[in-house]
């Protein structure tokens, strides 16, 4: 049984059909790339998994739970993390505190009331910051970070959250080639430990990390397979027609 299973999911935004009859399944431990032309519904697919939008039809099943009607925090507590396309960190908080918020094994108000900052947690968070190259900025406010650093902070926050399933929306957006490569390395290291779904445009990056690619088009799944299979796929070619093919997307 797949860890994540979307069946016949349909999402509408006041009449506009963003997802129509989407079937999408991911096995545990897999790193899946989700690609498709603009407007294919990739981000909406992530949104419907993490509870940001709700489907009007179909089922979203995660680890045996029907999560289609759950709120964002309930989905998160089941072990699903989300990274947004626009890096969203808490700009007024320090890097350390951003990571502490993300490290959320016990999300209750009253349990956290007695939770004062402990040195051992601090240690783990400092290591995480060091890992993504933010050691110097550990006590600085996140608002002062550069764009690339903010992306890295958000990735570190996902690590702190330590979710079973991680949903990433264009993690390499706005990164330099070097930073993109570093991100690919990181994802490869997380492979197997976490199940990861990545929405991406950068084919070079996808080739570095992906085993299986799912291609979406007009709100439904168009094709699924390895990089080589997808590149030969005739329907994928026609879906990208006019945009210079899959590499130009």
């Amino acid at each position: 049984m797949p860890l994540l299973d979307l069946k016949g999911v349909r999402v509408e935004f006041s009449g506009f059909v963003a997802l129509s009859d989407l079937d999408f399944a991911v096995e545990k431990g897999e790193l899946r790339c989700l690609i498709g032309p603009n407007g294919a519904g990739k981000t909406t697919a992530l949104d419907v998994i993490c509870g940001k939008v709700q489907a009007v039809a179909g089922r979203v099943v995660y680890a045996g739970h029907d999560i289609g009607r759950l709120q964002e925090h309930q989905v998160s507590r089941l072990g699903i993390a989300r990274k947004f396309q626009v890096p969203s960190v808490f700009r007024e908080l320090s890097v350390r505190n951003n990571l502490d918020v993300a490290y959320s094994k016990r999300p209750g108000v009253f349990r956290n009331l007695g939770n004062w900052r402990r040195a051992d947690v601090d240690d783990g968070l400092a290591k995480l910051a060091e890992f993504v190259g933010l050691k110097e900025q550990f006590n600085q406010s996140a608002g002062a970070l550069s764009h690339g650093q903010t992306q890295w902070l958000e990735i570190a926050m996902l690590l702190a959250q330590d979710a079973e399933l991680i949903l990433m929306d264009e993690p390499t957006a706005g990164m330099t080639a070097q930073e993109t490569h570093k991100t690919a390395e990181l994802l490869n290291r997380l492979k197997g430990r976490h199940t990861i779904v990545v929405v991406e445009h950068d084919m070079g990056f996808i080739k570095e990390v992906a085993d299986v690619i799912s291609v979406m088009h007009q709100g439904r799944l168009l094709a699924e397979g390895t990089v080589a299979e997808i590149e030969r796929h005739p329907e994928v070619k026609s879906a990208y027609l006019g945009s210079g093919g899959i590499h130009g997307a």
Partner: protein
Amino acid sequence: MSTRHSSRAWIYGYIAVCVVMLALPLFVSDGYLLNKFARYIIFGILSLALCLSWGYAGILNLGQAVSFGLGSYCMAMALKLRTIPIQTGGGVPDFMSWNNVKTLPWFWEPFHSYAFAIFAGMAVPAILAFLLGWFVFRARVTGVYVAIITLAMLVVVNLLIIDAQSYTGGFNGITDLTTLKLFGIAFDAYSKATYYLAAFSLIAALLIGLAIIKSKTGLVMQAIRDDEMRVRYFGYDVAHYQNFAFCVSAAIAGFAGMLYTLVMEFASPTFLNVSISLSIVIWCAVGGRASLLGAALGAIVVTGVQGSLSDSPKFLDTWMLIMGALFIAVVLFLPKGLVSLIDIFEQRFRKQAAGGGGPLTPTALPAAAPAASELRQDEVG
């Protein structure tokens, strides 16, 4: 943000405020002045309460005076009941007999007990806040809409109290109260005892507030203030956190209201009018809404300056103008409030002490990814 409170200048700031407050009666023996200072301190508590919800959780509560007023009425009801045999010769408080109320209404009964009254003074505002918060925060109402809803709530409660004249004293409020006696101490409005009660209450409120904002709950509250949506994806039920801040804030404001009744010797619907509610926001903003100490000091400074200006015949016509200029100056030059002066001074001092170049910190090579299991172990411990 969090480092600022642990920095030394801030600890000195907290200690200095407490010491000055506690030492004041050694130099001031005039009851009228002590009463005035106690009032300022109570406003400090009220402002601190708003700081918890507005400054830390981003909930701009324009109905803070509801909590303040309800607390004030709870105390006044208890004190009024003790005057019955003397003023009216039995049965009901004087204003009720003027309104032809023959038997004491059921909700007045439990206020024969001081313990209940003091509990209710905090619980009633907190429960009301909880009910309102439950609907508002569940529905994910944010920003200016919260301000409008809380303001509407204030107007409604104010009208209800004025309208139910036979049970609440209407426009006149509840007057002619007895003096609170607890543990053998009489809390006369002009006594040192009452002043100290207010001062220790402010210190207690500061400590409770600090305990909350230094905990992880406080951290999540600040994260919600920054980006409410993002917090949800880490598994926190944002509505719970918002409602918690809202209720604690209401309970503290209710406590301040009880003290205010002791100091003013009456309770009145003017305690929960719009102008007090807006004043609290101004105190908070002038002092610094991102700091508990700042918010409390803001209230003390603003009401203090206001009081001395309006008392002196020299400024009788112009004091409003001077206050306005002061607000504009603070908003323009110290957008983070008066307490940001502490940070500015500290930075100056540090620069001088460092003498220019700070020590170079060695850059370590990035280590391996800390395994998730490492963090998990912390969790167990």
